[in-house]
């Protein structure tokens, strides 16, 4: 299962990285007649603006992967920072963050996204930042709890007995023991970010010039009466599903490996 996941994610990554080499056209270039059915020069036909759907599909992988990757990195960094410092400093500081997390988790994510969509046009990086700000909370809580119990363990007490400060304890002892947790966190945020990005694009949040699977689905829907769904709507949907499935399988593989 882990292998299947790895293969899926691997393929998507390759597509994302080598998209300019594989794609026959630039995704935003007018290449011919609009709304063509698939043929030998346009593998998946063209859209309403005469852009090659296959090329857009490949470039869409870039958007999904980079948003997933950077959001995962940024959000996990926030989780780590807030989780570890809350555990280390405890007291009011800890209380503040934990209650804030409770409050933030109570607000539905989609609502925030729709609100943002109503007022702003969001670039790729803007999207990454918004998604990061929406994804660190759970991780921070998990990391804080784990750190708190690690801080009670004997080897950290022993290090304190040698006069170790908070920085030493974090770098030398906490991080190495939080590593498995961090990798789970990265995968989870990645998956969520890919999904949320598709959702946001589908809802029309974000830069319209961004090539994205979510946006493709949205556009395809408008022309569904033409019967173009099978080459315009389905492929981004399938790729999105496969990407998320791949990551889920990876996470699952991790868990089952750990329990053995």
């Amino acid at each position, binding site marked *: 299962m882990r292998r299947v996941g790895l293969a899926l994610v691997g393929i998507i990554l390759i597509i994302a990285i080598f998209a300019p080499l594989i794609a026959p056209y630039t995704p935003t270039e007018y290449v011919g007649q609009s709304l063509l059915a698939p043929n030998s020069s346009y593998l998946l036909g063209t859209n309403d603006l005469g852009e090659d759907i296959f090329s857009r599909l490949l470039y869409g992988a870039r958007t999904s992967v980079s948003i997933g990757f950077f959001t995962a990195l940024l959000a996990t960094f926030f989780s780590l920072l807030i989780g570890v410092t809350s555990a280390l400093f405890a007291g009011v500081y800890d209380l503040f963050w934990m209650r804030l997390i409770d409050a933030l988790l109570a607000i539905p994510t989609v609502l925030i996204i729709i609100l943002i969509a109503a007022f702003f046009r969001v670039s790729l990086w803007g999207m990454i930042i918004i998604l990061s700000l929406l994804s660190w909370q759970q991780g921070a809580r998990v990391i804080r709890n784990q750190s708190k119990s690690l801080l009670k*363990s*004997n*080897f950290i*007490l*022993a*290090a*304190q*007995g*040698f*006069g*170790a*400060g908070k920085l*030493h304890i974090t770098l*030398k*002892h906490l991080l*190495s*023991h939080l590593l498995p947790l961090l990798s789970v966190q990265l995968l989870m945020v990645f998956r969520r970010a890919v999904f949320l990005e598709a959702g946001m694009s589908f809802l029309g949040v974000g830069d319209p010039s961004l090539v994205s699977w979510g946006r493709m689905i949205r556009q395809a829907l408008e022309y569904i009466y033409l019967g173009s769904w099978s080459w315009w709507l389905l492929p981004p949907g399938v790729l999105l599903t496969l990407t998320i499935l791949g990551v889920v399988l990876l996470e699952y593989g991790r868990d089952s490996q750990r329990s053995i």
Partner: protein
Amino acid sequence: MLELKDLQVEYGNTKVLNSISLEIEEGEKVGIIGESGAGKTTLGLSVMGLTQGEVGGQIIFKGQNLLAAKQQDWAELRWQQIAMVMQNVDNILNPGYTILSQVAEPIIQHENLTKSEAIFRAERLLKQTGLTRAKMKLYPDSLSGGERARALIAMALANDPEFIIFDEPTAALDFLTKEKIATLIKEVSKEKTTLIISHDFFLLKELVDKIAVLYQGKIVELAETEEILQKPTHPYTRALIRSYPTMHRTQELQGVRRGNKEHAGKGCPFYARCTQSLDLCALKEPQLQKMEPAQRFLACHRDGIVEVIRTRGLTKEYTQDGLFTKDSFKAVNEVDLSIKEGEIVSLVGESGSGKSTLAKSIAGLTPHSEGEIIFKGESLANWKQKALEFHSQVQMIWQDPASSFNSKLSILEILIEPLQIQGIKDKEIRLKKAKKVLREVYLPEDESFLSSESTSLSGGELQRLAIARALVLEPKLLIADEPTSALDPGVQAQVLKLLLELQNQEGLAMLFITHDIALARKVSDRILVMYEGKIVERGNAVRVINRPQHSYTKRLLTAANSF
């Protein structure tokens, strides 16, 4: 009666006695103790005027400085007023004469008596020391060690001297004979002034009023016999007492540790072997000084064995705030304890009695609620300013060694971690120190061992690694929290032996925490019994074990006895 002032004796360039000052009043009985080579015999011989060395200072006998007196005058005093019972070695008696004639000889020489009168007196003396008429007629070869000792005493008594020096009167004798000779010495010296030279504390305990401890030709401590035995103040005195087998100690014997420092030739003679020396000790020789308030003289820059840690009214309270109530519970309740350099104090109690909380408070790992912790004369609050330094001197060994190591680190990383924390940046030095402690705990020090993970070690090896890590910073106080309870008995014995050996070698003060009173008995100088956060009984290990006062101690002992 006899006063030594700044007495010095040199053989060639070797100083055997170094400014000895000692006063002996009439009728007083004084003991001199020290290891062989300390200069004890030389001291006796120099009072007799028989030493071959260069003698300086003053020996004042009844107001007369013997060193300034003519040889003639001294010779007159010798044997008549000052006599010496020579050390009982094989060739001390002339093998060519019978015992009787050897005892009669000084009488003939010094007093105007005829031969038969002298022999009559010699007979009486020998009889007084317990030799039968038949034995007196024998040659020294035919006598046992005890009998020869008696003959030597008789010889010293020949001219009825006022002052007798006994040089190792019971060396190499068995216990029963020793006891008889001790009784004899007591009897013959009843109305005399005596100086008894011995390495045997418990002979001196029987025979003398005060004891001077001689180390490398210098008196390092002088006090009343009981005082010195109960509360030795100089580290050397305590080491001597500890190395002597007795029924009053349950611990293993410990030798006086070997020196680990270069001795520059000046400074305190004990410097090289002392675990609490200051820089000053290497430079300046401490003088014998009177210590207040006790009647005690001591030559030590540090005023004797230092107290490493003391707590006063130490309390740790845990509170739980409820909605309407405030629950609190005192895990540690007004604990007073004190541990001196080189001393092992056991803290005994069942689980939940607050032992570990106490340990963590003392180690500075959990703040206490009330009371005071004083480490090396400074309160813990002051040490907070220099926490790193404090932590380098107080180390803990944890109950479960495996959990006290980060499983992700290699053995080398584990060992150098304390050094890194303490800011030792030089990799070479760190490696050297790590290897040194590994050698001390008998673990391998090769590359493959250093780079392996701690999880590959057995329980005994793990605890030895823990000990090594605790020692890598050369602490002064070691807190061992149930260090052997996770080990099986065979391994426990090994680890314990190692721990005690290192403790003695480094002169560590150790708080040994255990639930096992039988173990505490083998390990400690003193035992504290803890029950529900309070110290319910404290005292010398033997006293606590043999005559427990508190019912809880009695219960612990009954439980220990039934296994």
